[in-house]
């Protein structure tokens, strides 16, 4: 039986990659979830250019329409939480309740930022020089590159893509190599909700190819990265060399203090949860 192949979404089209990669189930390594397109440098650049071209119109997109779009995406994710949670757990290995919970979180994140679209307030102040007004506003960056990790295949892409779009930016999203399945479904939901061409681009592929292209391209105004310390430092070095805005979420070594006056049952549950749930694969793990 042929496994299904899933494509990238670049400049308004679903396209094949230069190569494909297999998404394996860590609970059962004989189970291939699917095959996914792997983009090359040229395809990544096409996505970036599409985002760049779409940026001015998206920055001026009506706020109600933009809010409605994000809310619709959130609702779609929530409506499919059982099915998507299953896919997530199948490809990442966290338990089914964890997977479903994470998908619900992703849906809520989109709804939250749908609400925030109407709340982008500025300030108006009198100048110290008489007769002059000072106006403070927040404007989109333009094109935002998203590089997401494998441990939260739904929530982290959501909590990066939703605000990026809500605040008027166009997106080039590269998911982690290990978890393209959930990312692909999220991309489909976002696109099918009615994103104008070029506003949202989904580019699966190797970090050393797709990720690096995103980080180094002068048309990408900001990069939001969650991943390893080593890769984060490389992203930082490349971004700062061309003065691109960046944010990094890397690792943690999170201590939990238990005092002798602690409620022991609470302490044990906190420790077990913090250290072992999600197989210990959380940046906030104890």
């Amino acid at each position: 039986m042929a496994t299904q192949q899933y494509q990238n979404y670049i400049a308004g089209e679903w396209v094949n990659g230069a190569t494909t990669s297999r998404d394996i189930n860590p609970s059962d390594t004989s189970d291939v979830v699917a095959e996914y397109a792997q983009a090359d440098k040229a395809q990544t650049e096409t996505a970036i250019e599409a985002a760049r071209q779409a940026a001015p119109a998206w920055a001026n997109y009506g706020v109600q329409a933009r809010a409605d779009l994000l809310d619709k995406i959130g609702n779609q994710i929530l409506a499919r939480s059982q099915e998507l949670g299953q896919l997530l757990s199948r490809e990442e290995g966290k338990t089914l309740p964890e997977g479903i919970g994470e998908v619900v979180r992703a849906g809520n994140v989109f709804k939250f930022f749908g609400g925030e679209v109407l709340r982008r307030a500025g300030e108006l102040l009198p100048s110290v020089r008489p007769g002059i007004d000072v106006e403070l506003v927040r404007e989109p960056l333009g094109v935002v590159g998203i590089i997401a990790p494998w441990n939260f295949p739904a929530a982290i892409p959501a909590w990066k893509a939703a605000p990026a779009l809500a605040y008027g930016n166009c997106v080039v999203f590269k998911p982690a190599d290990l978890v393209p399945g959930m990312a692909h479904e999220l991309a489909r939901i976002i696109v099918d909700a009615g994103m104008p061409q070029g506003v949202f681009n989904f580019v699966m592929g190797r970090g050393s190819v797709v990720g690096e292209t995103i980080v180094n391209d002068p048309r990408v105004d900001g990069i939001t990265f969650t991943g390893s310390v080593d890769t984060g430092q490389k992203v930082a070095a490349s971004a700062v060399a061309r003065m691109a805005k960046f944010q990094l979420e890397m690792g943690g070594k999170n201590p939990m203090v238990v005092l002798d006056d602690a409620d022991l049952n609470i302490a044990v549950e906190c420790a077990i949860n913090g250290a072992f749930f999600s197989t210990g694969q959380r940046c906030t793990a104890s």
Partner: protein
Amino acid sequence: MIARMKTLKVDNALKKGTDIGPVVDKSQLIQDLFYIEEGKKEGAKLAYGGLQLKRETEGFYLEPALFTETSNSMRINREEVFGPVATVIAAKDYDEALAIANDTPFGLSSGICTTSLKHASHFRKNSQAGMVMVNLPTAGVDYHVPFGGRKGSSYGPREQGRYAQEFYTTVKTSYVLA
């Protein structure tokens, strides 16, 4: 802890009743096993777990591990394992515990389990982490409030909630004489 660990079911992620699914892939499993070996080599006591497990299907199943009698200078306490490996460091009092908790190159999350308001308040104010948990696990956050840490953990504006606008927008200050 060990009594509770014995009740944890490590199995297929999609199977009902599983508490802990497999490690995400082979290279991550190798990393987890490496740190378990390092812990033993550095003299920590493997009090429970840490073995690779076999289940109905081939998968990256690892029994959660607990090390006791560890010191903060051991690699298993300095470096992020990113797997189900926990360590216990003993401290003689709250002040020492706080010092140990802050003695790390990272600063994402920290937690304290206590029934003392005094210690909880002091810890909240003096922990060098971006997120502090009181009687809650270090992991598990809400989506409408800022997420992020200090030191080597995070760089740049916070994520999530209203604070996300700091990264995704840029401020323009306009002066108008009209």
